[in-house]
């Protein structure tokens, strides 16, 4: 039986053993800590280390592997050409588990123990903001790859953070400008109840209202991120009978939503606008269930003509034995940008030199030249806006009638940015 009753206690010897045990455990722990800390300082010809923090498990995990594969590809290509200032690049990957606190722990460790030159990565917005805040406090350069919240480079921006991907504001605005031409009046919205989902809707709505003052909002829905039970939401939206629906759901929430929405006939009853939903990350897992006719931002890698991009896709598919995702392109451009900044910062880069190097830095990428703007560190990488359609031959949804909108076309004026950054 369990709970074996009373134990004989109270002998001094027992207590002593126990205390000895705890003291020796504590000492062993201290030794471990010492061992962790005792990494020799970097020599000049040693590789330049980049600390890469991303969600390799948890809620962001489905999207980070193709990103990582392209990061590794870019690093190998740069090193094959002799690296930067004669030094090779080395990326240390760390898993933030989708939690900001975990990301900060890694930032501390990467900088203090591994002595990385800069930090990079991030997928979820809240994780990116956390790393950025830590980087500001400790004066370490952070190159945010995928987090989308505009706060990162604007209201919470600082000299030590730059971002590669076009943010929620830019993409919301791209969609609003196309959507405004369609003259839908009654709008509903559904998105995950967190930073990204809310800002994605607000920027779109505000811009649409400017262009189409007659637009009305008939319903907003905020399921918890990663936990949607979609049936009730679909019914609720149908009963608000909007002309159009704005969706900022992504990942498993979006996939589950599509299934319920298709069965209940939602896509026949309203026009759907989806932020990011043309990215292979979100449309490929739906296979032939992908809804047609949605206005989306995304990445039609199969249909981008530039030779440099075609070669990038070819090399990636050969190396990773899979099709690229938008994350792959972002990961590749992130490393190219870091290498370019390191080149400009000189042979002995520190956070201040890197920060200066990134301001106004042009980078040649497979999709043309992008620039990290001097005023806020936001890159001018754009996004593709188009309409979804089913490619029956490949058995997945694709984007058609797409147009690449460069960041310059939708980014706010320097004046507005200065206001948002509080003069910084």
């Amino acid at each position, binding site marked *: 039986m369990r709970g074996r009753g009373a134990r004989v206690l109270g002998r001094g010897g027992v207590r002593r053993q*126990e205390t000895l045990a705890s003291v020796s455990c504590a000492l062993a722990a201290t030794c471990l800590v010492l061992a962790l800390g005792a990494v020799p300082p970097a020599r000049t010809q040693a590789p330049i280390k980049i600390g890469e923090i991303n969600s390799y498990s948890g809620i962001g995990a489905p999207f980070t592997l193709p990103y990582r594969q392209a990061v590794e590809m870019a690093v190998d290509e740069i090193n094959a050409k002799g690296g930067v200032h004669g030094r090779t690049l080395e990326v240390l990957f760390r898993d933030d588990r989708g939690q900001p606190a975990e990301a900060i722990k890694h930032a501390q460790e990467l900088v203090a123990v591994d002595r990385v030159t800069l930090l990079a990565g991030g997928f979820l917005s809240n994780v990116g903001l956390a790393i950025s805040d830590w980087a500001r406090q400790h004066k370490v350069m952070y190159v945010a790859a995928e987090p989308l919240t505009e706060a990162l480079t604007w209201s919470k921006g600082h000299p030590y953070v730059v971002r590669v991907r076009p943010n929620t504001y830019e993409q919301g605005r791209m969609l609003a400008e196309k959507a405004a031409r369609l003259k839908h009046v009654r709008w509903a919205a559904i998105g995950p*109840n967190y930073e990204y989902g809310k800002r994605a809707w607000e920027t779109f709505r505000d811009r649409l209202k400017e262009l189409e003052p007659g637009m009305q909002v008939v319903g907003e829905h905020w399921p918890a991120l990663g936990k949607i039970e979609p049936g009730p939401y679909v*019914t609720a939206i149908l009963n608000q009978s909007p002309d159009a629906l704005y969706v900022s759901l992504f*990942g498993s929430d979006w996939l589950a939503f599509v299934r319920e929405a298709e069965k209940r006939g939602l896509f026949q009853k309203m026009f759907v606008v989806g932020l990011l939903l043309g990215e292979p990350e979100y449309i490929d897992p739906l296979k032939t269930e992908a809804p047609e006719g949605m206005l989306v931002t995304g990445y039609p890698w199969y249909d981008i003509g530039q030779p440099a991009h075609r070669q990038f896709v070819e090399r990636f598919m050969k190396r990773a034995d899979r099709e690229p995702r938008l994350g792959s392109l972002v990961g590749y451009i992130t490393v190219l940008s870091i290498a370019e900044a390191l080149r400009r910062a000189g042979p002995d880069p520190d956070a201040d030199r890197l920060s200066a190097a990134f301001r106004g830095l042009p980078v040649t990428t497979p999709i043309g030249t992008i620039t990290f703007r001097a005023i806020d560190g936001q890159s001018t990488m754009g996004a593709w806006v188009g309409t979804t359609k089913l490619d029956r031959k490949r058995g997945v949804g694709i984007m058609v009638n797409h147009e690449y909108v460069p960041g310059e076309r939708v980014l706010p004026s320097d004046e507005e940015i200065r206001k948002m950054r509080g003069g910084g």
Partner: protein
Amino acid sequence: MSASLLLVQLLSGLAHAMVLFLIASGLSLIFGVTRIVNFAHGSFYMLAAYLTYSLAARLSLGGASFYAAGLAAALLVGLLGLVVEVGLLRRVYGAPELYQLLLTFALVLVIADLVRWAWGTENLTGPVAPGLTGAVPIAGQLFPTYDLALIALGPLVALGLWALFYRTRYGILIRAATLDREMVAVLGVNEAALFTSVFVLGSVLAGLAGALQVPRQALTTVMDTAIITEAFVVVVVGGMGSVFGALLSAILIGVIDAFGVLVLPRASLVLIFVVMAVVLIVRPWGLLGRPGGPDAAGAGTTLAADGGRVPRGLVAALVAALVVIPPLLPPFALWLLVEVLAFALFAASLHLLMGAGGMVSFGHAAAFGLGAYGAALLMLQAGWPMPLAFAGAPLVAAACSVVIGFFCVRLSSIYFAMLTLAFTQIAYAIVHQWYDLTGGDNGLLGVWPPPWLAPPLRYYYLALLACGGGVALLALIERAPFGLTLRAAVYLKGSVFPESLTVGVSIQPLVMVLLGGVETLAGAPVGAAVYKLLDTVVTRYTEYWQAVLGGILILLVVAFPRGIVGSLRSARR
């Protein structure tokens, strides 16, 4: 709101409820008979969903492939349940019951990595159910036939379980064991076989739930944690060990969730936990539970807080080491030590709650998180200087704890634990959704210490003082000062996130206390140090940190069924 909307919403809620019922009934059954709080139940559910996905693609039975695959997946998961029960759980039935919880927590980690390794991390959409892909018009709206089938299936499963319990000898034994396990054993029933079969049956039910979700939801590697909290809520509201209570509460929660979408679109997180708290305050043993029935924490873990007194010389030596060595350490080691110290205090205070009070709190994170938010808000919003905010934080946490404690303390054991869980979730939801004050999921950033405290070494000494003082205080008064928690870590990281309030964080210190050994206060800090260091070291060297950590935890539990310090002590005796 039109009547047709209400009807369709009700049906949607019922379909969700049936999946909840399947998973919760297995969990409840297992708990009722074996007293195991099986955290791995959600992992079995996830595994079955992935197995269904793969098997359906490989079987060539035409329209029957999906159904055959689902059934096979549920049975395979049942088989895994058999292996787990016989191979692992059976070894620790003699240990304090909470060690089984530690073991199932380790299984969660291992299975999560197994799925990641076998199926990758990308989201998958499984097959739809052939023959049930369409929708039928109901009150002018389309409603999926698959959901109708689920609504029909749920009661059938409930009926099957009823027939099993009330029409077979095996069912009588299960019911008897749920009421009084010791008596059943005394009467000569083969307890081991009964436990094993119940664990397998429960696992099959979890597997069935997982298989049935495939046509409705996408497969993700976080399905396990997404479902398990909800399943626990259903079990507790229904009454631990009561399968029909689980049916009733699954319906209640599924339907309330569906209507919550219409009424409180932004508070969806809070709603079901409010229901749980209300039910438990009115009927502390759940809807169909039995007062004074199953009691997880009380039995078998009569914990005397006996190990607190340690010879002064050794304490002095340890303190001296902690004071003298750090100046020689690099900054990161100091950060890590601060975290260990903070968790040591956290774990020690939880230990006293468990040891002295006999209460297992899943809600300790609420105190931890409220302390953190209290300190951060006092500094950011009220503009207090850090040392003052530091002192004010425990008062904030204590004030909240008094409210929570008022409702919780009169409950016993598992219900206490579950109600603290509910309050933690409510606190989490409020923090998560009260964007203006708490920053929502972004947390509170920029909570950095003033310049005179910024050097890691100075900060370390402050943390040492606070945590050392806290542990000493605990040892002295043997009472858990609820709020004296992790403010140290907060300032070091310069930010507070809602995660600090979640169940995950509550499980961590529980794991630490259990790892160190519940019987002695010295166990908590040792457990904290071992867990934190393992975590840090393992994540450095492998992507599969969950599997490695889980594996080590399993080994530790099997090798040290009384915790590290507890086992060392028995070994020396």
